[in-house]
């Protein structure tokens, strides 16, 4: 639901301090919005939490909370779960991806009438938010390398999840095909395992439990040293179907493209069933989702269709390459290295840009020269450009697939709106 923030009155169930905190946060957000500084949700949340540090916990008390965390697919899956659970009652969600405690607090403050709180959580904050919000369910989708110059090592993150979730009362919905996620979830009491697939495996060769070398025949995986192995899944993604625990296959018909979104839909169906929403109903509701925060959106630039795709790390790029139109569809790549992107561009070399051979490629963004060297070594034909308009003017016929990392994607969205 999208309550009007300025008119909303704090819920009667909150105590005086919490009400004051909500009101102060909304005032701060309104000031920030009026000043043209975005939605104001982060500053509003910060102000509110300063007035009442327990506000997040209080706002969660009357909600059935679902947390969603992962390296990739958090925002999209949060959106899919929100759509699915609306079958059972009103939902409040941080749909725009403000996924740290302040942004989450702001989002929940809008949900006085909601039954469900569907919350995307940054990987580093999962244990803390899980403690504060008493979730009924937590969906863990995947873990892989991301912005290593500023974030935790990937296995350490899995370890933190494992420690932080060990005593949780929540039902954990976890991807059995991701050994790091499995490691994180396997100390929890109630786990629903989903065979949701794993395309990028480079962070999963070393056993998270003992360090042995993982064996991965077919879809199984196991450590020959300690016996840690893939759990028997309750739910499974099979092609374009999700198979429920009774063995019934349900067709997934999304408007969102790609294997990764089929995987997100499978996890969503498993989450929805925890709350009594039948997979068929959940999947039907997911069909309405088109673009998520501009991702997968098609726009017109100088009369040409351009599809906007976000890829922030090697796993994300791999999934994105698998969904773009086949060669010779023109491809634009844009990479920045601001702090929100990670300032180290070395990760470009963990991405198989060799897969773009045969596509005419245009590179742009702050770090277009890093991309140029990467593509030269990959044997990909490319041209360096300064803008999406220039790329589109030079591109041969066909829909243009524009793939960008975080701030480059935001820049691209602004550029195509002008």
């Amino acid at each position, binding site marked *: 639901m999208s309550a009007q923030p300025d008119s909303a009155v704090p819920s009667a169930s909150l105590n005086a301090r919490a009400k004051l905190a909500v009101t102060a946060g909304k005032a701060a957000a309104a000031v920030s919005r009026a000043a043209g500084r975005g939605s104001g949700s982060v500053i509003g949340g910060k102000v509110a939490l300063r007035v009442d540090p327990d506000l997040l916990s209080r706002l969660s008390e009357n909600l059935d909370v679902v947390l969603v965390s992962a390296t990739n697919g958090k925002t999209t899956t949060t959106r899919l779960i929100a759509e699915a659970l609306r079958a059972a009652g009103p939902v409040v969600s941080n749909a725009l991806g403000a996924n740290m405690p302040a942004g989450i607090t702001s989002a929940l403050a809008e949900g006085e009438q909601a039954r469900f709180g569907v919350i995307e959580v940054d990987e580093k904050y999962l244990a803390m938010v899980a403690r504060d919000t008493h979730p009924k369910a937590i969906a863990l989708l995947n873990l892989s*390398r991301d912005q*290593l*110059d*500023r974030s935790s*090592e*990937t*296995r*350490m993150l899995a370890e933190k999840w494992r420690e932080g979730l060990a005593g949780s009362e929540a039902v954990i919905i976890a991807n059995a095909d991701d050994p790091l996620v499995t490691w994180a979830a396997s100390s929890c009491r109630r786990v629903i395992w989903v065979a949701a697939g794993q395309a990028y495996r*480079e*962070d999963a*060769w*070393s056993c998270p439990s003992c*360090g042995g*070398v993982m064996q991965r025949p077919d879809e199984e995986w196991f450590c020959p040293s300690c016996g840690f192995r893939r759990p028997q899944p309750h739910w499974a993604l099979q092609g374009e179907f999700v198979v429920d625990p009774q063995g019934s296959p349900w067709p997934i018909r999304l408007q969102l493209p790609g294997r990764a979104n089929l995987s997100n839909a499978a996890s969503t169906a498993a989450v929805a069933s925890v709350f009594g929403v039948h997979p068929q109903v959940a999947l039907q509701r997911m069909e309405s989702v088109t673009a998520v925060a501009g991702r997968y959106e098609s726009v017109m630039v100088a009369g040409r269709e351009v599809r906007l795709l976000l890829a922030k790390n090697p796993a994300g790029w791999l999934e994105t390459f698998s969904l773009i139109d086949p060669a010779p569809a023109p491809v634009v790549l844009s990479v920045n290295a601001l702090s929100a992107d990670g*300032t*180290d*561009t*070395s*990760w*470009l*070399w*963990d991405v198989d840009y060799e897969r773009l051979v045969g596509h005419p490629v245009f590179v742009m963004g702050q770090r277009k*020269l*890093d991309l*140029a*060297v*990467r593509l*030269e*070594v*990959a*044997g990909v034909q490319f041209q360096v450009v300064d803008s999406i308009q220039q790329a589109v003017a030079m591109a041969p016929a066909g829909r243009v697939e524009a793939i960008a990392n975080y701030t480059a994607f935001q820049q691209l969205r602004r550029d195509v709106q002008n």
Partner: protein
Amino acid sequence: MSESALRLVWIYPDLLSTYGDRGNVLVVERRARQRGLQVERIDVRSDQQVPTSGDIYLIGGGEDRPQRLAGERLRVDPGLHRAVENGAIVFGVCAGFQILGHEFVDDRGERTSGLGLLDVWSTRGESHRNVGDILAEPDPRLGLPTMTGFENHQGITHLGQGVSPLARVTVGGGNGTGDGTEGAWRDTVFGTYLHGPVMARNPAVADLLIKLALDVSALPPADNTWYDALRSERISAAQQQTA
């Protein structure tokens, strides 16, 4: 060079391939092929034997626990030592550099033996982590231009009498010893803290390894247009970072 093809060995991609150092393998392979060389690339997983007959061995950076596991597995495998005795070239980055030395500090905070192929030993800095663009002037005997890279480490590497610094830092932290040294080398064994990856930022380093493997003093020219453009951009960015 041993056989007709250049044998390029990548040590433990399953453990030491976290910070894009795979790019070093790709750049050496690409630049060798551009010179008309056959390249046989051998990726050695940590449950496999290290071959003794390679020409160039590359070891990348990794997280703390994988570094310990890699050290444990390489210590009981005589392959790399034999290869070096045969004159092979070894180039290690970050965690891979530390493993080439006498000892390093592992994920449990314990001092762990390395391979002793370089006369260096590594400790861990108190709290300061060197993260950012780095510039360094290489040892003049190597005939290399200014080195640019990205460093991301808390390790401090001390050099013994048996090695020379690979380079002298002008921007950044390097070995972290405060004396401005970056990396180390002796004969055909090299270590550095530079990511970027280092070969993509400094193709002359890739060429140096190929020349050493072939035992030639020069290679046919290769097109360096985009490497040169990237180098100028990163060198000036690093200079402005401190200005």
